[in-house]
């Protein structure tokens, strides 16, 4: 599994959705699971795996899967 696949799977697991649904261009609003609990799960995943803590405006700016991927940078 390459790095990108691994990241997409982390997102799918956090949102508790089928991993086929998670592609970079996917609009998050289209996912039923993208509710406040879903957002919280993504914040948790980013904190745990990438030590990133999103601020309020960064949370609002999450529109597509690739917006989440931008925060998933290995340090």
């Amino acid at each position, binding site marked *: 599994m390459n790095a990108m696949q691994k990241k997409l799977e982390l997102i799918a697991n956090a949102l508790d959705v089928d991993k086929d649904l998670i592609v970079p261009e996917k609009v998050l609003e289209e996912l*039923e699971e993208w*509710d*406040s*609990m879903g*957002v*919280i799960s993504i*914040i*948790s995943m980013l*904190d*745990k795996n990438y030590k990133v*803590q*999103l*601020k*309020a405006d960064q*949370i609002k700016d999450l529109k597509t899967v690739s917006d989440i991927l931008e925060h998933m940078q290995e340090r």
Partner: protein
Amino acid sequence: MKQKNGHARKLILRKPVIVMKFSCFLPLAHLDNEHIAAEYNDPKWSESKIYRKTGIRSRRVVKDELVSDLAVGAAKRLFDEYGIDRNSIDFLLLCTQSPDYFLPTTACIVQHSLDLPTSTGAIDFNLGCSGFVYGLSLAQGLLSTGAASTILLIMSETYTRHIHPMDKSTRTIFGDGAAATLLDKEDIPRIGRFVLGTDGSGAPNLIVPSGGMARPRSVDTAKETTDEDGNIRSMDNIYMNGPEIFSFTLRAVPDMVRRTLERNDLSSEEIDMYVFHQANRFILENLRDRLEIPEDRFYIDVEETGNTVSATIPIAIRNALDKELIQEGSKVLIAGFGVGYSWGATVLRI
């Protein structure tokens, strides 16, 4: 040097073994996940899913009881359980965000209900999840200056009165409850150094928008709206931006805990138990992982009471004492964080 140590130990042994005193009082009515799930009839909010996401199975909720009733219940239990003479109390500190009235002060009502001497000082202070830590800092100050000699510190909260029944984001989390603590001069050395913090820019993220002078209640503020997650509330109800509150917690708490250890000259391993504000299991587990605290030294106890706001820390300490997970002399790091934003932490020698 050896002799000196031996002497000190003898002195300590002669002192009676007394742990810090905590008593709790919860309203009788239960609100369990089964009941909530049946009302919502939404597969995303099934009984098991609510439990899995929050770690909460049931909450205790008020029907007609007021914050003063819960406060009196907790204080009376404290007097009974520890054989305390109410005439010894000369200061009452009460923390709440759901007071009986704008005025008078709820602590004054409680003074009368408890038949405390009229020579008792009494004040309310308005804080949420950080309230217990702030209460201890105030108590330590009052005791140290001699302004008070025996303080009754009460956390009493009925957030469910602020909650719209169809707002899943808050109804699944919060419960009502009260806790009472007694603090006298003997307790000053048991309370460590504090790390406190405030960031009022977070005010809009956990708020009851109407009812104060900024926006008095009216027909308009009572109008219900449905948000994108299907939660219904009006401006008279509590609003919580869950993702932002969660993110704030991850930003603020780990740093506060590290600074609290530093300020108290303690290493993480020297803490016998970490008792954080019991927000919900999900937040607590995230913080525990982040701080790399072993499970057996990190107390989580939300299953039967939910998040009782300022009362969670003293309720959790009392439960941990009853379960003998902590005992006299245990070093307990407590940390409160939430509405305001406001946060605070210290170390207690129970």
